[in-house]
């Protein structure tokens, strides 16, 4: 195999190991920041190592960087899925009840509601929502953001609900 490609695979492995270690150990750091910094560091190490080990003119950074970029995105995709995906939470919750079946109420209570409250807290912390009495109110900052998102959603042809199965008129909003 070409040495530059081997180097990029080694850099990708390094990124995977470092990011995994940081994500496990430093739960106060933003996961996206950890992925971004670790992949950036892997890219810099790859380019410098390529210059030192492979040397010009045989070395060009682009094939190796493409492998590194694609691998880093696949890693981020997989991590985001296990970190944020509600569908996977529902699947794991159902698996824990196996071989029994599980009711929609239990799935809602155990897998969805805690995540829902997490996100509400995120919006409160971000200043898009505020609490008045026992009511949630969208702040002016939140309204401005909503108008922008609504414009993009309409432009790109999304339904306004954010549900997967509400946009298809043939299903009538049903599963």
């Amino acid at each position, binding site marked *: 195999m070409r040495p530059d490609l081997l180097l990029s695979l080694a850099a990708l492995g390094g990124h995977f190991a470092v990011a995994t270690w940081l994500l496990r150990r430093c739960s106060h750091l933003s996961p996206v920041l950890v992925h971004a910094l670790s992949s950036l560091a892997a890219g810099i190490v790859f380019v410098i190592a390529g210059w030192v080990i492979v040397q010009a003119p045989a070395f060009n950074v682009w094939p190796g960087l493409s492998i590194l970029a694609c691998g880093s995105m696949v890693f981020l995709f997989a991590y985001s899925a296990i970190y944020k995906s509600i569908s996977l939470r529902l699947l794991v919750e159902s698996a824990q009840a196996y071989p029994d079946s599980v009711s929609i109420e239990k799935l809602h209570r155990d897998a969805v509601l805690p995540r829902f409250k997490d996100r509400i807290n995120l919006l409160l912390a971000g200043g898009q929502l505020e609490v008045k009495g026992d009511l949630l109110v969208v702040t002016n900052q939140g309204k401005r953001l909503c108008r922008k998102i609504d414009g993009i959603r309409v432009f*790109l042809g999304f339904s306004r609900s954010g549900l997967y199965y509400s946009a298809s008129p043939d299903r009538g909003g049903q599963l």
Partner: protein
Amino acid sequence: MLGSLIPPPIFQVALAACLMLPAWLVIISLLAPRKLPAKHRLASAIVASPLFAITVGIYLLPELGRTQALDWIEITCAGLLYATAIMIIYSAWSLIGYGFTVSILMGAHLAGRSLKTDELMASFAGGRGLGGFALDRIGVLLRMHLLLSEGDQFRIAGTKALRFARAVKFAMDIYSISRRESK
């Protein structure tokens, strides 16, 4: 040394396709009928941008100094670069269209009044009650044959689905997801 930073011709074509991807998404969204689903617009942009870039590349590659047969490794790596752009666009696209946090905020905004937490959940579930959102996401699992529906009960659909679910749980444990969430 700096010469190694200049993209070879096939990567110039791939970079052009990457940069054109959002532009094609905008163009297709402007030109396509309003009824065309969002995922079809994205798919059209994903197909259109490399086709356009390859067409331009066929004319430009000789001008860029590459006339001999292309190396399959370079073609594969250029394809990986384009795949990266697709994943970035898809992330932003699905975050705006289907993101959980974004949808909760939009649900509160579109309701047009202040809501209690339960009311917000019901509102953003599209009038399907409190379990409506869970039901929407379960729909994805049913379509992927990972869950089976038994009335209003749901069961893992066989050994493969169970193995997959356990692998996901294992990965969640590896990355200490529950500890991160409890912060």
